[in-house]
């Protein structure tokens, strides 16, 4: 892992229609290779716009974005950027194009003109990583939402990207589907050093990231480790966001004079700290 950023966003603004309010305002951020970055923000905050700017689906109206050193505004690099920075969207049903799982994973590769033998190998690997090998011949509509999202991830993985951008990819899934998809992403991040940019509404998911960015009104409102960000309970509520249940409980207990330390995020941490104070 080097320290050269694989995503560099410099003073980026974005306006949908000329004369309207910008959706993003002079935003700058960097993402390091191997980082798991969560992006939070309420609907309309600009976080999905940011995601679409990162792989060149939208082009900045001001500033510039470098993905692995390539400028998204350089037409010649558009396909290289999309191969390096793969994207997974919200609705599992809108991302499947083929009638058999295996063919769906092959779709991107066929478009890239990958030789047949290599294609087979890449598809097998990708399906193995998302644990869908046994469903390779299934019809996608017979799969659960979580399984469909894993097929979508396999399709992106087969392109061998360095960065995965997931735009609320668990929003339409049930709790077990959500866990499946998040587990795959964390495993990719841990074992293959995949850089992950994880856009979500679920505070518990963001709590597992290396770093959190909170986007509000087209700007970065907060940035830091989950502990740093979720300690700011009042600020998060001002931004119309939640904090994990244990962070909120710790905050209300502290306000009532129970001297818990800051930075509690999980049930385990809470158990430990409460016992320290009560079991004497």
């Amino acid at each position, binding site marked *: 892992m080097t320290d050269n950023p694989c995503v560099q966003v410099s003073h980026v603004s974005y306006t949908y229609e000329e004369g309207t309010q910008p959706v993003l305002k002079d935003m700058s951020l960097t993402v390091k290779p191997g980082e798991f970055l969560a992006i939070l923000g309420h609907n309309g905050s600009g976080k999905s716009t940011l995601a679409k700017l990162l792989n060149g689906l939208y082009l900045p109206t001001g500033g510039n974005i470098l993905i692995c050193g390539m400028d998204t505004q350089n037409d010649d690099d558009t396909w290289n950027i999309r191969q390096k920075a793969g994207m997974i969207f919200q609705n599992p049903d809108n991302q499947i194009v083929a009638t058999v799982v295996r063919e769906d994973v092959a779709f991107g590769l066929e478009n890239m003109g990958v030789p047949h033998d290599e294609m087979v190998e890449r598809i097998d690997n990708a399906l193995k990583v998302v644990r869908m090998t046994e469903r390779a011949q299934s019809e996608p509509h017979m799969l659960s939402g979580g399984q469909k999202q894993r097929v979508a991830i396999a399709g992106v993985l087969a392109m061998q990207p360095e960065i995965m951008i997931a735009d609320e990819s668990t929003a339409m899934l049930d709790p*077990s589907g959500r866990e499946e998809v998040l587990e795959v992403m964390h495993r990719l991040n841990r074992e293959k050093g995949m850089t992950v940019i994880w856009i979500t509404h679920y505070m518990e998911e963001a709590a597992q990231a290396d770093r959190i960015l909170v986007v509000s009104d087209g700007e970065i409102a907060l940035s830091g480790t989950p502990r740093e960000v979720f300690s700011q309970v009042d600020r998060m509520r001002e931004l119309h966001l939640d904090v994990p249940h244990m962070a909120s409980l710790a905050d209300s207990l502290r306000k009532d004079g129970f001297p818990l330390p800051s930075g509690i995020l999980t*049930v385990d941490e809470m158990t430990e700290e409460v016992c320290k104070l009560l079991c004497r």
Partner: protein
Amino acid sequence: MSIELRHVSYVYSEGSAFAHKALDDINLTIEDGEYVALCGHTGCGKSTLVQHLNGLLAPSEGQVLIDGEDINGDHVDKRRIRQKVGLVFQYPEYQLFEETVAKDIAFGPKNMGLSEKEIEERVRRAMDHVHLSFEKYAHVSPFDLSGGQMRRVAIAGVLAMEPSVLVLDEPTAGLDPRGRDRILGMIRDLHREGHATIIMVSHSMDDVASLASRMVVMMDGKVAKTGTCREVFMDRTLMDQAGLGVPAAARLCTRLREKGLPIPEDLYTTQEVHDAILKLWKEGGKC
């Protein structure tokens, strides 16, 4: 208005190679004025069940009774049943289709053959219930609104029929915390002030814990358990089997009791646990 399901079974694609029994001998009564949360993991039959409540699906076996009347009986007017039992599907905003918000909401009342005046009054009342200003939004295209607003328009379209039972299939799925709180607050008001019977399908045990008066847990097409949230959350074996996450506050209670702290075992809201911990602290804490 009470709803009773008697020995209801439902088989998809009956008689074909893909036949699948989605509901298996369901017996369930929902009384007037209840707020029932219907829970269970994907594929357990919840969505199939809610489509039986207003006659969209007819049981393969058994009966659905509303105020004692079999809604699938020979001479029953299904439209009348659907006005009494309003069903809000998952992602209802995908069903918006009219040019303006007001026209979309008026679609149901119009089909009921009401007068223009009555229709407008109902549209106004429905928009009021979902906290959308008539003046500001009535003549706007629904497709220019945010996701949360579109969903509220879709719910208003059902409310405009003024049903006495409101069935919602995962009404907060995909919304941000603010959108979710707005929808849940609105449903709570309809229940408390509008005296509507609410049946809500939900995956979020934390939402359910703070709102529902009763939980119905489904597993493999059967009702696995019904009871207050307290009773259901106490049954950890069932919660695990049904694939439901126990609220974080309830998990914390279990952990603290394992450490020997005298915390009641049946707490499940953050507020309750907060109060219990403070109480121990003020008493000087003891293990």
